[in-house]
């Protein structure tokens, strides 16, 4: 029961119900579809870069509560961040959901993303949480082909 409550924290439930930046973007400088063929989660992540800074980020698509909340929290955390800051957070977030916690000062920087710590208790759901991030990573790397978690 408590593991389940840790997974479905209020932050995650709120972002699932009312996702932030849940829209397409006309003036995006990059966008990619990411999908998880196993469960059918399917998102497009849009980014508008201003030099090295993520000036705007949004997403569309559908999936489970974990993946949708992850995309929503990610987008709200990354606006105004630099590319390398975003990549650094991805690394720490990935560590968080796979149960490899980063040093404390970096954990603090994760802010609301810490709500996803409970995912590490559910190996089958790690891909749900990380799908939006993998997709963003591909956008930032300048790729354009859809990516898949499998």
């Amino acid at each position, binding site marked *: *029961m408590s*593991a*389940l*409550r840790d*997974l*479905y924290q209020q932050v995650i*439930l709120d972002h*699932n119900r009312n996702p932030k930046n849940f829209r397409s973007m006309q003036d995006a400088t990059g966008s990619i579809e990411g999908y998880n063929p*196993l*469960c*059918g*989660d*399917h998102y497009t992540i849009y980014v508008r870069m201003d030099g090295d800074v993520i000036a705007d980020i949004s997403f569309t698509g*559908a*999936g*489970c*509560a*974990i993946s*949708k909340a992850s995309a929503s929290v990610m987008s709200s955390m990354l606006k105004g961040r630099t590319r390398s800051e975003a990549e650094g957070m991805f690394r720490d977030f990935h560590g968080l959901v796979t149960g490899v916690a980063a040093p404390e000062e970096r954990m603090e920087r994760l802010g609301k993303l810490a709500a996803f710590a409970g995912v590490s208790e*559910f190996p*089958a*759901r790690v891909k*749900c949480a990380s799908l939006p991030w993998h997709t963003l990573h591909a956008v930032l790397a300048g790729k354009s082909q859809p990516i898949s978690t499998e």
Partner: protein
Amino acid sequence: MHTTTVQSSQANQDLLERFEAVRGCRHHFPLLRQRVNGKPLVYFDNAATSQKPQVVIDATLRYYEEENSNIHRGVHYLSERATQAYEGVRVKVQHLLNAAHQREIIFVRGTTEGINLVAYSYGRTIVGAGDEVLISAMEHHSNIVPWQILCEEKGAKLRVIPINDRGEIELADYEKLLTSRTKIVALTHVSNALGTINPVKTMVAMAHAHGIPVLLDGAQAVPHMKVDVRDLDCDFYVFSAHKAFGPTGVGILYGVTKLLDAMPPYQSGGDMIKSVTFEKTIYNDLPYKFEAGTPNIGGGIGMGAAIDYINEIDLASLAEYEHELLAYATRGVAEIPGLRIIGTAREKASVLSFVIDGIHPHDIGTILDDEGIAIRTGHHCAQPVMQRFGVPATARASFAFYNTKEEIDVFLAALHRVREVLA
């Protein structure tokens, strides 16, 4: 009036007794005794794979402890014993399916390999440019992709029989798609994603009226009903042992002799040959022509034990009991707000696919797992079915005869909890 009541109460009593006999089989399945997340396991993922009775586990173990040897090769005692046991399973399968000949029973790895064998060997012989292969909108990927590859290679067209909103094929739509260009019909007997039982006997007859052969995918049918390939009059029938209480990695392709005889080998190597020189190889007779390499002997022995086990259960009572479980669960989920059943065919096997408004199936699956309940969530390897019903995925509970109404009560309570957790 009074007499009728007495009779119906007697009939009811008989039914209850027969159900009790079916329920009594539950203790044959050791895995079902365990707890998951601190709760008694409720295993509702039978359409993915069934659990195995102790007799199947014992037979497999005994094979490796006492009989293990390669078959069709040695003159020594063990090899002959293993060969006899393995070939004995072929006869059991022949009787299970009521096939006319042993040679029509071909061991494969499973349903997928059986379909690939037919698509590759038979398909490549008879399908040419401009021809058509006919499947239905409710096929598993394993009965779509092999035909798609064949059609691409040959410049042929894959045609799809549509399904209605209940998840049923309308025979009038099917009839229209049977033409002189149709070279084969490949159809599921029972849908894994929807539970629909197709009127396959009628559909085979309709195809045969046009001279078109039919392959039936029986993966979801064999565990739930008596299958008689001669009564169905199908040309090919495939199924997997693991969904029918046997081990993984072994299955059966049934084919009529006339077609199998004319087909080229699928894979080549040992056992499928009569003689080999560098100039020419003479292929073995049926069924060995299609059985290259050392097969899954231990798996085959386990399948034999599973068939013996099935034969001891009254299949009619089993089907009735499973139908009762399905009806009970169907009534129960109707009470869950926002729940919609995907697949409401009038003829249905014990599969309950559903979605809940605003809640992704994956989240349903995780919360049910927390209660010890195993269901499948996702597209069930039938993405076109998901597209047909406009959902990315479904949650699917699939029942076997060892499940109980009490387990369904646990399942229903957990579904209410899904709404609480995600509300």
